[in-house]
């Protein structure tokens, strides 16, 4: 059930609107509920050909030889497409935004770098004919050592996955193997903290699981153009990518999309359009390239798995004074979009909290698995999972109510964020208040009265301890000066504190933001670079 709290922030809204806020039925509803909306695969063409790709059975191998002669003679086969047929075989998706180097072939040439990497395309009169011909292709491989773990991939001597990035990490700013975030002085803050907690979090790779798998149909038009019916989530992104790979002027392609059977980020990578277009040009016939469910599950790019280490420094009165994050994004064998998710993650740390000392190193790591891509919450879902689990442990460690602990540290209007922009338009505290009321989660009066609109600027200016409510219950931590540096871990299998990964090669530290003179390293002393 959905309800509105129009009373909150009412003074910031004009509610005298006619169409905005109405539960208007969507213009395409009738088509969807009567199964008459046309998806890309509902377009019918005479003499339609079908493209299937032969995929690597190895996670990492050198291709010694390919013999497709029997496949080329098989019944129904119209054309074999090899790497040499692809006009611009090497591409990277974000090259359109001048981000990263071309690193991924449409069809593998000498080496395959993940299980399922496309090697050959077979165009035939039916999907079955293409698959039967595929069984006749003979490829001999020399298997190579593979690496699947992000931290193993960074160790000296690890197999090199991607020749464009031989050290298994994406290159940032032309010089670093990771993206940095530096705000305040975490080391000094950890030394002052009453409690220091560190833990490790692991996201799983996940399938987008759309009802409609990735696919497209490329149809030669009478004027030499190609019309492409596609399931893409980004029409011009896919058009421009396909034009680059096919070395075509963009106006030779006419992309039609728009009714998509579920995206969730899995239909950005333009995995089918370039080869479907190439096949249509090589055969002069309409060609469909449609992922099977097995291909979608295993070889369509998944949500990448991230491994995240968080270390927090907390005071017994509930303030988090330092947060340090080290995260590894598993990009798989090629970049796709993971390089960008790293930036998004760096900009999101330390979550919606005002913490005066923050440091993060985020890596985009290449491993011998299916390239990862965007998925709902790209760059943010995993770090939110890690941060919010960590917040819960922090609260337990100092004996505070976990929701009040979050509200105490929540960012407010006027606070300075770790990426050096002022927080505005905040509403975390209000969400906590409303959810707590709805769920009958008891909050003390001072927390029920808190506001995102008050106290932030003051907090950024000078330390105001009086603003801080007292902890909910007496701290469980013994009142000694010994710092608690471990957290009880029921799963003994993982012990990140005991086995820290090799420290990244750190370039000379830039000067920390100028600390103001009043000495208190609380919510106050590191906002010298604040901008309005």
């Amino acid at each position, binding site marked *: 059930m959905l309800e*509105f709290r129009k009373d909150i922030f009412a003074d910031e809204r004009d509610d005298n609107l006619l169409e905005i806020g109405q539960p208007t039925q969507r213009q395409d509803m009738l088509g969807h509920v009567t199964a008459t909306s046309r998806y890309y695969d509902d377009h019918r063409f005479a003499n339609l050909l079908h493209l299937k790709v032969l995929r690597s059975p190895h996670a990492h191998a050198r291709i010694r030889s390919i013999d497709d002669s029997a496949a080329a003679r098989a019944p129904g086969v119209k054309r074999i497409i090899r790497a040499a047929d692809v006009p611009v075989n090497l591409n990277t998706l974000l090259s359109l935004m001048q981000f990263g180097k071309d690193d991924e072939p449409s069809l593998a040439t000498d080496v395959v770098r993940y299980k399922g990497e496309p090697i050959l395309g077979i165009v035939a009169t039916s999907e079955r004919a293409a698959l039967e011909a595929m069984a006749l292709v003979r490829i001999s491989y020399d298997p190579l050592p593979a690496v699947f773990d992000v931290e193993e991939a960074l160790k000296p001597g690890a197999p090199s996955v991607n020749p464009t990035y031989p050290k298994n990490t994406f290159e940032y700013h032309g010089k670093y193997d990771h993206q940095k975030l530096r705000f305040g002085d975490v080391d000094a803050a950890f030394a002052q903290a009453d409690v220091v907690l560190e833990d490790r979090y692991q996201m799983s790779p996940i399938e987008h699981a759309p009802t409609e798998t990735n696919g497209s149909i490329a149809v030669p038009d009478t004027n030499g153009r190609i019309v492409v019916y596609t399931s893409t989530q980004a029409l011009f992104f896919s058009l421009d990518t396909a034009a680059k790979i096919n070395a075509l002027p963009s106006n030779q392609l006419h992309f039609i999309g728009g*009714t998509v059977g579920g995206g969730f980020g899995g239909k950005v990578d333009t995995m089918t359009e370039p080869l479907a277009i190439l096949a249509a040009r090589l055969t002069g016939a309409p060609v469909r390239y449609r992922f099977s469910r097995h291909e979608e599950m295993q070889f369509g790019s998944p949500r990448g798995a991230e491994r995240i280490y968080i270390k927090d420094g907390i005071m017994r009165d509930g303030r988090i004074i330092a947060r340090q994050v080290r995260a590894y994004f598993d990009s798989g064998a090629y970049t796709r979009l993971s390089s960008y998710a790293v930036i998004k993650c760096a900009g999101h740390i330390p979550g919606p909290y005002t913490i005066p000392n923050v440091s993060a190193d985020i890596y985009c790591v290449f491993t011998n698995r299916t390239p990862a891509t965007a998925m709902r919450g790209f760059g943010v879902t995993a770090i939110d999972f890690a941060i919010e689990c960590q917040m819960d442990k922090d609260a337990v460690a100092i004996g505070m109510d976990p929701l009040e602990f979050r509200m105490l540290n929540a960012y407010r209007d006027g606070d300075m964020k770790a990426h050096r922009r002022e927080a505005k338009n905040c509403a975390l505290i209000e969400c906590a208040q409303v*959810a707590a009321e709805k769920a009958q989660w008891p909050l003390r009066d001072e927390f029920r009265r808190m506001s995102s609109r008050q106290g932030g600027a003051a907090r950024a200016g000078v330390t105001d301890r009086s603003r801080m409510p007292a902890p909910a219950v007496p701290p469980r931590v013994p009142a000694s000066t010994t710092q608690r540096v471990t957290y009880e871990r029921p799963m003994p299998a993982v012990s990140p504190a005991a086995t820290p990964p090799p420290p990244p090669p750190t370039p000379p530290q830039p000067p920390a933001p100028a600390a103001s003179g009043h000495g208190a390293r609380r919510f106050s002393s590191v906002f010298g670079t604040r901008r309005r």
Partner: protein
Amino acid sequence: MAKHHGRGVATINYPIGMNLGGDPSQALVHSNPTGKFTVSLSSIDLGQGMKSVIRQICAETLGVPVADVYVDTADSDTGPHCTGSFASRGTHRVGNAVMVAAREARAVMMEAAAEELEVDPGDLETDGRGNIRVKGAPHRSITVREVAMAAQFKQGKTIAGRGIFLVPLSDVDPETGEMSPATCYAHACVIVDVEVDDETGDVSVLKMTSAYEIGRAINPKMVEQQLVGGAWMGMSHALYETVEPYYPDPREGPRDFNEYLMPGPGDICPHEIVVLERPAPDGPFGAKGIGEMCANPVLPAVANAIFNAVGVRINDLPITPEKVLRAIKARGGAVPQARMR
């Protein structure tokens, strides 16, 4: 052996849009000769309702009924550029672009109406029902249809507009990470109630209670479908889904929906949702994006609820019964934590 109730919470914010390349989207709006409007886009409706949201924003800005606006999209020959439907950007980016276009078209419409009524355009207002009238003198009015006919056949005016929304380009500092990752943020707090069986490790999500701050709900039905569906996806990520069950060991990956675990209809739980609206200064009518953020808080809230129920922390997703059971055993049995109501 028992089933233990637990409650967990998470609070999050979410950046709207992509902070790369300016993240532009364009929109074109024009009227046909009888005063019906078409919005031309290349943006994709993934089923989330992007077309409906854009239609309502356009109608509100033009000052005409929503029935008089139709959104045509996803044809590269007719629709201008859009970066794509991802990063929770559709409502915000495309919405802003269509507002710019609709304002331009509205200005021409009001000029044409002023010429017909022989008044100053500044003295006119729309009633949102298809009429344009003189402020304070509603009997002096003209229909949008009459204005469009006059513009097309008598005055030679095009009632049309172009719009683009582009975020100022933001560099990322290599040393400090200083950047402008987003221009606005949505917010959420989710409280999850679970039941954990300490004999099987099975986790049932009993109830979700959430508050989402989304700037402005353009269409409350679309908001509800996103929030309900997103929470389901978050619960699925937390407890069920993975394409590599033994990650980083890549073996044993699923090939179809028989082998890929997801919650079924029987696993769906009641979800109480409260929506707050603090308008984003740069959002269309204050709207932010909600497409992605609604899944995120559910993952940690479920994990935290499991801790509250049985006293074990699972840091690796998904939280399968096997992991829960092993953790309970390692801890020497379930250790329920303090109840939070």
